[in-house]
């Protein structure tokens, strides 16, 4: 779905409140900032990742993101252990999430540690698209991507 220029792929799962997308692949989940999140944040200037192997509680920071106007956490949608970060990708091009948030701009890969109890807020498909329409209207946002 594309709504006010915000791309919300319906094959992904979302934590809408935290603006995080999730791609499950077996026991591993890849996480990133949604188009809405990267637009609200603005051009990213720096990211510091928590260490691989670290266990992170739901809602706590998997990374800290700095843009020209804001510093804040990239929050865990569920409790998890970090298995991989995209630190190398962002070191080569800090604007990865601003250019391609659902592709090369992924942030971390994690192993959920308590998913059964912490997944009721996650949505996907048409339900996610509908919920995001409401959120995009509330935020009065038009998504923007970096092209260079």
């Amino acid at each position, binding site marked *: 779905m594309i709504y006010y220029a915000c791309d919300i792929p319906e094959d992904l799962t979302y934590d809408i409140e935290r603006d995080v997308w999730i791609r499950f692949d077996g026991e591993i989940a890849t996480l990133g900032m949604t188009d809405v999140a990267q637009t609200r944040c603005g051009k990213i200037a720096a990211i510091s990742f928590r260490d691989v192997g670290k266990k992170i509680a739901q809602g706590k920071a998997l990374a800290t993101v700095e843009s020209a106007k804001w510093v*804040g956490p990239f929050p865990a949608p569920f409790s998890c252990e970090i298995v991989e970060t995209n630190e190398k990708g962002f070191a080569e091009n800090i604007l990865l999430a601003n250019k391609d948030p659902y592709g090369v701009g992924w942030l971390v890969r994690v192993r959920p540690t308590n998913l059964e109890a912490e997944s009721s807020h996650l949505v996907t498909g048409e339900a996610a698209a509908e919920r995001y329409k409401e959120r995009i209207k509330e935020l009065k946002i038009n998504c923007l991507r970096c092209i260079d």
Partner: protein
Amino acid sequence: MSKKIRLLYMEGVSPLRSQTVYHAVGYAMKQDTPNTIILVSPNAPYVSIGYHQDLQKEVDLDYCAAHNLPVYRREVGGGAVYLDSGQLFTQWIFHKEDLPASLEERFALYIDPIVQTYKELGINANYRPINDIHVNGKKIGGTGAAQMGIAEILVGSLMYTFDKKTMSQVLKVPSEKMRDKIFESLEAYMTTMTEQLGSTPDRAMVKDLYLKKVAEALGAEIVEGEWTAEEEAMAQEIDARFTSDEWLYQKGQLKQQGVKIHQDVHIVEAAFKAQGGLIRIIARLREGRIDDVTISGDFTLLPVFAVGALEQSLRGVAATPENLKSKIEEAYYRLNIQSPGVTPTDFTTAIMNAVTPPQAA
């Protein structure tokens, strides 16, 4: 907003506490914590660096040690800044639902009472989106935003005075020429209440005026209060972290374009090895144009006044390779410049290296 806002008024606290207090109130925030405004100033000068800066690359630590200036890394972004009692920090620690969702609107709301305070004092201050406050093209303080726990934080200051000389001294820069350019640019593009009014206004009066403007902007009552034992304990925890080497010397990822003076003005520098010698550039960029440039190096340029003439001819020129090269070639033709082993293309490359530094692989 109908809820009361708690005011924590803390003039004259230690440099460390002037930073850790808003982190502590932010991290300690719970659903029933009131939105809080902290007005705080330090009782001694210090240096604050941005969350992702590399301390050893950005700050002249020898100078700071020699002048007893502690350095603290904040959890807000941006660059290194020298701070002292000449600023009253205005820190908002709010629940996110009590602030606009968009950061642009959030900054506009936060900055408005500061601008209105200045205006009532007779200073022609204006909001310069996204997060600067300007007076006739000069910056009178910047602002920042962050999320800590469930709290949304906005920070800035009311600028009574600003020690531009010491600000230029605490930065680690590649040359004293660059330092001079930073100081000169701070003089040209930063201002304070004292400069604007000819004398420092009464601090109690300014504080009261600011709080009145905040209450008007938010439609809320502001009530002076105390911080809680839990917040104080959190501050002590953060004090310990902020003074640890592990926190202070953590690897910085922030790559900046030179030194930012304000949103539209940056000082940049670069060197380029041409066949006829090394060209060094220190430039001040303003809204993408060369505001001022200093060219030096070990090349030969004749006639003797050619370097100055070249610098002069580049002022106001849009910082693109085409424009720069065209201006330089025109100066070469007009002044019959001779420069063995150095071409207009070399000067253009040197300047563009400063304007858009080659990306590190």
